């Protein structure tokens, strides 16, 4: 059992050869009247993500950058922001993919700005809650000896895609209806309404259809599809919403 030399594992120790300009939108609405952009020079490697670059700035150049992050592997939904004008997860966007010398990062639209790149999710979380995102049926609590509700792999396929939503809010930030309608349920919640309705274990279809059949409910989606184009997890909310509307229009039952 040998020396400890190979235990050193600090991938960042490789000297960086290339630099990119990271333009960060800085804004504290409680103190300032409008956002301003500040440029930073940041080194990068072929694996450096936009989140890595922002954290480099936070750690070395400006400690005050406001940015939300956690998992750094595209599973927690924290780091959605506008990168070169298009919303994406910062931890799932590599610098080299952007093919650009200047990378501009801004907070997502259609969410209130808390600070810099950080936005408030209160409304999205509460609309998510509103559509009853859980299995509705009387025997959903087990008793001793209960076994599983059977479900074939094919039945799982019917909803699993919608189950992948990480609540990053990217979809809500690009939807054209959301751009002007602050009461719209939004693609995130609608896709979740479909997720539970499509689950064979659920019996809450009527309930949920009633909730979303509202003047700012599902009808305010015009199948613009942008939500699906930016969704980082392949949820395809646009599909879910149209299928859901199929129930309301009587195309499906």
């Amino acid at each position, binding site marked *: *059992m040998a*020396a*400890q030399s*190979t*235990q*050193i*594992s*600090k*991938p960042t*120790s*490789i000297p960086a050869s290339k630099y990119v300009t990271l333009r960060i939108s800085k804004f*504290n609405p*409680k*103190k300032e009247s409008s956002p301003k952009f500040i440029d930073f020079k940041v080194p990068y490697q072929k*694996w450096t993500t936009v989140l890595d670059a922002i954290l480099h700035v*936070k750690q*070395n150049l400006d*400690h*005050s950058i*406001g940015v*939300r*992050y*956690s*998992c*750094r*592997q*595209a*599973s*927690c*939904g*924290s780091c959605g922001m506008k990168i070169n004008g298009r919303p994406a997860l910062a931890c799932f966007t*590599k610098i080299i993919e952007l093919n650009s010398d200047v990378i501009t990062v801004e907070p997502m639209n259609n969410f209130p700005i*808390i*600070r810099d790149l*950080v936005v*408030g*999710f209160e409304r999205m*979380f509460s609309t998510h*809650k509103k559509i009853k*995102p*859980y299995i509705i049926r009387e*025997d959903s*609590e*087990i008793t*001793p000896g*209960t076994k*599983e509700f*059977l*479900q*074939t792999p094919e*039945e*799982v396929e019917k*909803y*699993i895609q919608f*189950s992948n939503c990480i*609540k990053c809010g990217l979809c809500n930030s690009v939807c054209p209806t959301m751009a002007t309608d602050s009461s719209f349920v939004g693609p995130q919640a609608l896709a*979740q309404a479909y997720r*539970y309705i499509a*689950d064979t*274990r659920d019996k809450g279809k009527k309930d949920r259809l009633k909730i979303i059949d509202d003047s700012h409910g599902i009808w305010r989606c015009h199948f613009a599809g942008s939500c699906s184009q930016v969704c980082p997890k392949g949820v395809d909310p646009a599909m879910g919403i149209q299928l859901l509307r199929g129930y309301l229009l009587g195309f499906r039952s």
Partner: protein
Amino acid sequence: MVDSIEYDLLIVGSGLAGLRAAIAAAKKSSKLKIAVISKVQVMRSHSVSAEGGTAAVLFEEEGDTIESHIYDTIKGSDFLADQDVVVRLCKEMPQEIYQLEHWGMPWSRRKDGKIGQRMFGGYSFARASYAADKVGFYEMQTLYDTCQKFENIEFFNEWFTTSIIHDGQRFLAVTAIELSSGNFMAIKGKALIIATGGAGRIYSYSTYALSSTPDGLDMAYRAGMALKDMEFVQFHPTGILPSGILITEGARGEGGYLLNNKEERFMKKYAAGKMELAPRDIVCRAMMTEMNDGRGFDHETGVRCLKLDLRHLGDSLIKEKLGAIREISIKFSGLDPSQELLDVRPVCHYMMGGIHTNIDGATELQGVWAAGEAACNSTHGANRLGANSTSECIVWGRITGELAVDYIQKTQITTPFPHHLVEAESKRIYDGIFRGNGDVNPYEIRQQLTDTLTDKAHVYRNEAGLVEGLKKIRELKNKAWKHVDDKAKEYNTNFTNVMELDSMFRVAEVVLIGAINRKESRGGHARTDYPTRDDSNFLHHTLAYYDPKEPIMKKHPVTITTYKPVERKY
């Protein structure tokens, strides 16, 4: 004076353990006001990254037995697990899987419609229930969504808890900063469940979320509770380079294997019986030995690694069962696992240690429970088996949630509230940290601290290295890093980052001292200078109590009921 708000039950942490506890409590009483406080938003907790599976015996009719799960866990723990606790885990787990299923968990299914299970390291039966390779994520979603049913669960998203307030006898409140406004507040409650998760970010190469720092552990430690068995840090054999993101053990459970630069499955030399599916401590040691003996590969980052071969599993199986790691490898490393070998090396993954609790999850302070990875109820002993952690989170989430409700229902707090303690905490963080002075970049100190642990307290450790590490950490601690350059109140993560760093020092110290004291090799703790297990001197748990000067170290007996320690062979 510092403002305060009042709830009945406080749950700090909204990972698997915290959410499960919230549901258990809300189900038991719809009258209690329950606050789930977390420094990240609800679905952003580290638990969403758990990939491979959750262990439970579901198919007794097909030959699995609870007994076997119990023994596998105890043997995996290198006999440091408390056996009564393990029995409880294994007995209660099957019901929890079915409960999750009834709440909507999208388990992967077998053809007959039953819940699918896969092979995992150290088990004698395929008993890791899985949902593709996003088990933790789906479990979090199921629990979070189920929480939405209960009107008495309130979420405090992005509230950074800084301390536990008690009167020496029992729990009274926590103090926390609401990140969005920057307000510092006391949140009073009759009972507290700590579910702040693991602290693996004290290592620089780690599978953990960036938010997995030891501030939760430290909070309990400063409040006088003991940290137990902190020297046992689990390394996972397959962290992918360069990011350190986890490639789940499920990849080997589905049939993947590890190769050295001679293209041989070297595990046959170390655990011929279980090969790549030996427990993690064994596989990690094997990998380190291979690399140290020159049979590794040099990754372009300059780090040594080995290869994980999944190619023979085939594209369609990988897509179906390992979709998330496929995405991760393609995106972050540019490698498609169905075509290429993945570069992997052992990476910090789990802390067997945590806040000392009894079998019920109760800590030494009345009114405080701990559950999940933050707790150490000694289920995992010296080495956790994969898929047993999410199980532990769920079982003890439920147990502590229910017990806390019982306690609240019989408790009346009459003593006057110790406002001075809240003021003292406010002084500690605002005068001591927020308004601190210094010219050293705290982020650089954090990097050095985590590098030191990665260097000195890795898979293999020895006296010299550990002592040097401790010295280095104490040196770093004395530098002028305790200051916050960002002076704004709103969403000041610079402030919380420095508080996290502050907690890292205390917890890293406990890890190192524990490791120095344990002069044997057991489970995840492998000393090159004491390469064997020493049951006559070290078959005990380590406890560490806070003292401003240096931790006070104590011993605590292991509960052994049925299985006498024997040599561990796979």
